[in-house]
């Protein structure tokens, strides 16, 4: 099975994001970057699927030269090769999906695994646009029935099941008030939720091997995709602050305050 996975470069989710005074963007100084956490899960699932069924994982990232760091990380985790779409400017989900569509047409994978959302723009759209434009099946918010503490997880089994005839995937999805299961005919687009798997760390031999794995460079112009922004961010601002609260001494005081001051009991 040939699997295309995506690896977007984003701010480390642990970092404190501050808005620039003029509202034109976020303060970049002091920020660390890493692979979008959902995309690490996508890489992991791809590796587990190919470990079980054979094939290879190809990783794609769109962005400036820096995204090669995230590609190298995916290669160190075990991806076979990488595709870098060199695009230094801003990008929206339509642009990302348009570029990925062209990469898919070139690579012809059986399956694309993306994150369910980027933790910077929090849009959660790219996978669905891609699936529609390819005319493929979509299995979004992929999760699994077992927990991340289960034996199946410890055995690093893929949560996404391939049918015996190799033509459909069984995808368990996290939806409102339960888990829904879909049978997605291949080729398909899957997007990952947090509980699909626990991504591996890159091993030292993995990191060494990654240095020699190829990164192919493509460009939006070369792919013939217009990535002009359709979603334009006009300005950014910090969220309205919550007024400072108080610490109470004991439960009685808490109870009195909730009852008489906040009047919520």
């Amino acid at each position: 099975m040939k699997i295309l996975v995506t690896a977007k470069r984003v701010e480390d989710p642990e970092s404190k994001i501050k808005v620039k005074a003029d509202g034109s963007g976020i303060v970049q100084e002091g920020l660390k970057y890493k692979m979008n956490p959902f995309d690490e899960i996508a890489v992991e699932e791809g590796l587990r699927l190919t470990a079980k069924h054979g094939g290879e994982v190809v990783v794609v990232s769109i962005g400036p030269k820096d995204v090669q760091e995230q590609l190298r990380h995916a290669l160190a985790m075990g991806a076979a090769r990488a595709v870098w779409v060199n695009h230094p400017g801003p990008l929206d989900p339509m642009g990302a999906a348009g570029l990925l569509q062209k990469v898919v047409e070139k690579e012809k994978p059986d399956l694309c695994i993306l994150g369910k959302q980027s933790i910077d723009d929090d849009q959660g759209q790219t996978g669905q646009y891609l699936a529609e434009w390819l005319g493929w099946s979509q299995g979004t918010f992929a999760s699994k029935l077992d927990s991340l503490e289960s034996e199946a997880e410890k055995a690093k089994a893929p949560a996404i099941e391939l049918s015996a005839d190799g033509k459909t995937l069984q995808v368990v999805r996290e939806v409102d008030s339960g888990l829904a299961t879909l049978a997605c005919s291949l080729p398909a687009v899957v997007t990952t939720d947090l509980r699909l798997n626990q991504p591996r760390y890159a091993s030292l031999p993995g990191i060494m091997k990654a240095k020699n794995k190829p990164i192919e460079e493509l460009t939006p112009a070369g792919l013939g995709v217009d990535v002009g922004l359709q979603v334009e961010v006009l300005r950014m601002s910090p969220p309205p602050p919550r007024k400072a609260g108080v610490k109470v001494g004991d439960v009685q005081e808490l109870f009195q305050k909730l009852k008489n001051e906040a009047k919520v009991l």
Partner: protein
Amino acid sequence: MSIVLIVAERQPDGQLRKATLHAAAAGADLAAKAGAELHLAILAEDPAPLAERLKDCGAKVIHTLASPSFAHYLAETYAPAVAELAKSVGASFVGAAATAQGRDLLPRVAARLRAAMASDVVGFSGAGTDIVFTRPMWAGAVISDVKLKTAIKAFTIRATEFPAAPAGKAPAEVTAFSAPAAPASPTRFVDFKEVKSARPELTEARIVVSGGRGTKGDFKEVEALADELGAAVGASRAACDAGWVPNDWQVGQTGKVVAPQLYVAAGISGAIQHLAGMKGSKVIVAINKDPEAPIFQVADYGIVGDLFKVLPELRAAIHGAK
């Protein structure tokens, strides 16, 4: 006249998902600003009961799309039908609530319409075709104003930011739309495992009591306080990931967004991704044994202590006052 089309949502039990009423209110707000009419779309095997339910919530027209293939929701069958409807009525805006279904469906509808989209919208401003969508980014650390430059614009709305559309408005005109037959779906519905609960729905509850890693997997006291208060139970990602509680209880950036009158966080540190899902609560109570836990920065009332002592004491105080 330009049209705002909102896609209604049915729960697996066939009832209306309440978030639809919030989406209808958001749609009405947008329609007023854009100088547009509010239309609703209902897709179902039999849309009549939902059309009846939504008739007086402020929409001008309700489009019913009936087909046996709509019995179970699938993006691959719903998106072409919604897109056809949007084109046929000439909608300029297509939206839904940012539920699991809305998040799955709307980008696929938008893709079909070559429409740009804003997810999790918390407000609209501007007028006419010059509408600005306000939405959170970076787990709510940033609020951004965005413009969608395509002719048709798609969005999902955050239900906690809009009131539920009140009933009692002038009745909508109900009209059947028959979408052209779509090609066979490459995706098949297999099953739905519902997490049943006798408690109120997390996103609708007046009070939410949540537990985190500090419970060490023992949610008994969290649940007991919730039941004393008739509240819903929520959880942090750490508690859900460990398999202690259903995933469906997760509150946060990638879980549910709640805004109850009272939110009690027990043994939750207050990571930004958690705050993203509960910062809009009217009153926040934090119970944590670490006085430096970031949750105290957003809590109206904080108590430093062991949740296994504090929760039962609080429950006893509440019970005693009844």
